[in-house]
Every structure is written in C-alpha cells, then in structure tokens.
C-alpha cells in the first residue's frame, strides 16, 4: 500500500468513527425524549388515579349522607301524617257538628 492510500484509509476510518460518535449522541437524544414521554405518561396516570380516588371517596361520602337525609325525610313525613291523623281523630266531632250546622243554617 502506498503511503498516500494508507493515509487516506486512516482518515476515512477516523471520519467513520467520528460519525459513529455523533450518531450515538443522536440515538441518545431519541432515547431520552422517548423516556421523557413515557415518564410523563406514567406521572399523569398516577395523578389521574389520585384524582379519581379523591373524587370517588367524596362521592361516596355524599351519597351516604343523602341517603340518611332521605331516611330522615321519610320519618318526618310519617310523623307528620301520624300527628295529623291524631289531631283529626281527636277534634273531628265538633268540626262535624259545625259543618252540619252550616249546612242547615240559612242567614
């Protein structure tokens, strides 16, 4: 091999290696970006789960609260109906008398 060609070969080899070094850096960039996206995705997933968890426990609390309110309302209705029925049973006779009197009285 002449010196010239040997020299050129060496330079070509150096260029080749240099290109490898740069390419490796570019691959690193690609990998890093992909990793960043994957990490971000995972973090977002975690946040979502946390938010969902909070929301669900809030919703459950409230539904059990409203159930007990409904039961209370039910009880209130029953109590009032009982009270009305009792008041009527107790006081109806004079009321009926008065009604009949109104029917048969002409001014």
């Amino acid at each position, binding site marked *: 091999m002449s010196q010239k060609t040997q020299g050129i070969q060496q330079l070509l080899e150096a260029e080749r290696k240099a290109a490898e070094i740069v390419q490796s850096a570019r691959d690193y960039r690609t990998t890093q970006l992909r990793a960043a996206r994957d990490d971000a995705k995972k973090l977002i997933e975690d946040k979502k789960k946390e938010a969902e968890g909070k929301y669900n426990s809030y919703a459950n609390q409230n539904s059990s609260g409203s159930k007990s309110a409904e039961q209370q309302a039910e009880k209130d209705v029953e109590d009032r109906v009982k009270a*009305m029925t009792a008041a009527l049973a107790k006081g109806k006779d004079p009321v009926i008398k008065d009604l*009949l009197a109104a029917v048969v009285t002409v001014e």
Partner: protein
Amino acid sequence: MSQSRELSDEQVGRELEKMMAFIKQEASEKAKEIRLKADEEASKEKSRLVQEGSDAIEADYEKKYKSLSQSQQIQRSQVANKTRLRILASQQQLIDDLFDETEKQLAGVSKDKGKYKTLLKGLVLESVERFGVPTLMVQARKEDAAAAAEAAAEAAKEYKSKTGKECKITHDESTCLGPDVYGGLVITSGKIAIDNTLAARLDELRTEALPDIREKLVGKNINRKFYD
C-alpha cells in the same frame, strides 16, 4: 521505504495524526452538545407534558364535581317536593274522610220535621232574594214533595210581608231529586238553577271551610295574612 523519505514520512504521519485528532475532537464536541441539548429538551418536554396532563385532569374533575353537586341539588329538591306532596295528599285524604263522615249524618237532618221545614223555607227565601225574579220553581225529593210545596207557599208569604212584592213559587212535580242529595231543594228560574240540596251545600264547604277546619284542628296559622 527510502531513507530520504523518512523525515517527510514523519511529518506526514504527524499531520495525519493531527487531522485524525481534529476529526475526533470535532465529533466529540458535537456529540457532547447534542447530548446536553438532548437532556435539556427531554426535561422540558417531560415538564410540558406533565403540566398539560395535570391541567386536563383538573379541568376534567372540576366538571365532574360540578355535575355531581348539581345532581345532588336536584335530588334534594326532588325529595323535598315528594315529601311535600305526600303530606298534602295525606291532608286531603283526612279532610275527605272527615267530609264523608259528615255526609253520612246528612240523612238525619230531614228526620226532624219541624226544623227541616224551617230549613226548606229558609232555602227558598234565600234563593228568591238571590234571583230577584218573581217566578220560581222548586224541585225536591219524592218524599219531600209536600214539605216543599208548603215551604214554597210560606216563603212567598214571608217575602210579600217583608218586601211587599209578589212572587210565585211553585213545586215542580215533574222533576224529582235523587236520594243522594239527602234533602234540601233546587230552585230554578228558567234555565238557571240554585242547588240548595244538602249534599251540594256540604260540597261547597269542602273548600270554603278548610281554613276554619284547620284552625279548629291545629290552631291558628301564624303565617296567614288574609282574613277577609
């Protein structure tokens, strides 16, 4: 290799070395820059995506909480409405029962002959005054025919003595009122009729007497404003 070329070989060699080192150096620096930028970009991208994601989640859940609160409000008001309606329905039922019981006792009214006759006369008189017309017809139950005719005559007499005006009140024998009116009369002038049957009079009270009934059963209503 000739001796005369050794020095220039060395020189060439060194030049080559220098060039190769330069190529390598350039590549390393470029690679270093690329890696540095890559770290920076990746970190920025990660932050950006996470922020974006967080904001989306926040907006999403804000909507969810709002919609939940709305449906809770709706539910609360539905329960309140249902409760109110049930109570009103119960009240109405109790009042209806009360009136049904009262109605049963209407049958006994016509048994006291004396009082009944007075009542019939009063009903006719009231109608004469309301109609203001001198000719009227009176309808009654079959069993009240005689009492009705008598009431008509008495009423006409009393009207004349009170107002000096004549009026002709006759018992309409062609029409008989059914037994479900329990008594009383229907007074007509042409096509207009005043229903003064006992059943009708009680019916009128179903609405008119409610405030009174309420007061008697549960006491005065502190919220009531009108007492006309």
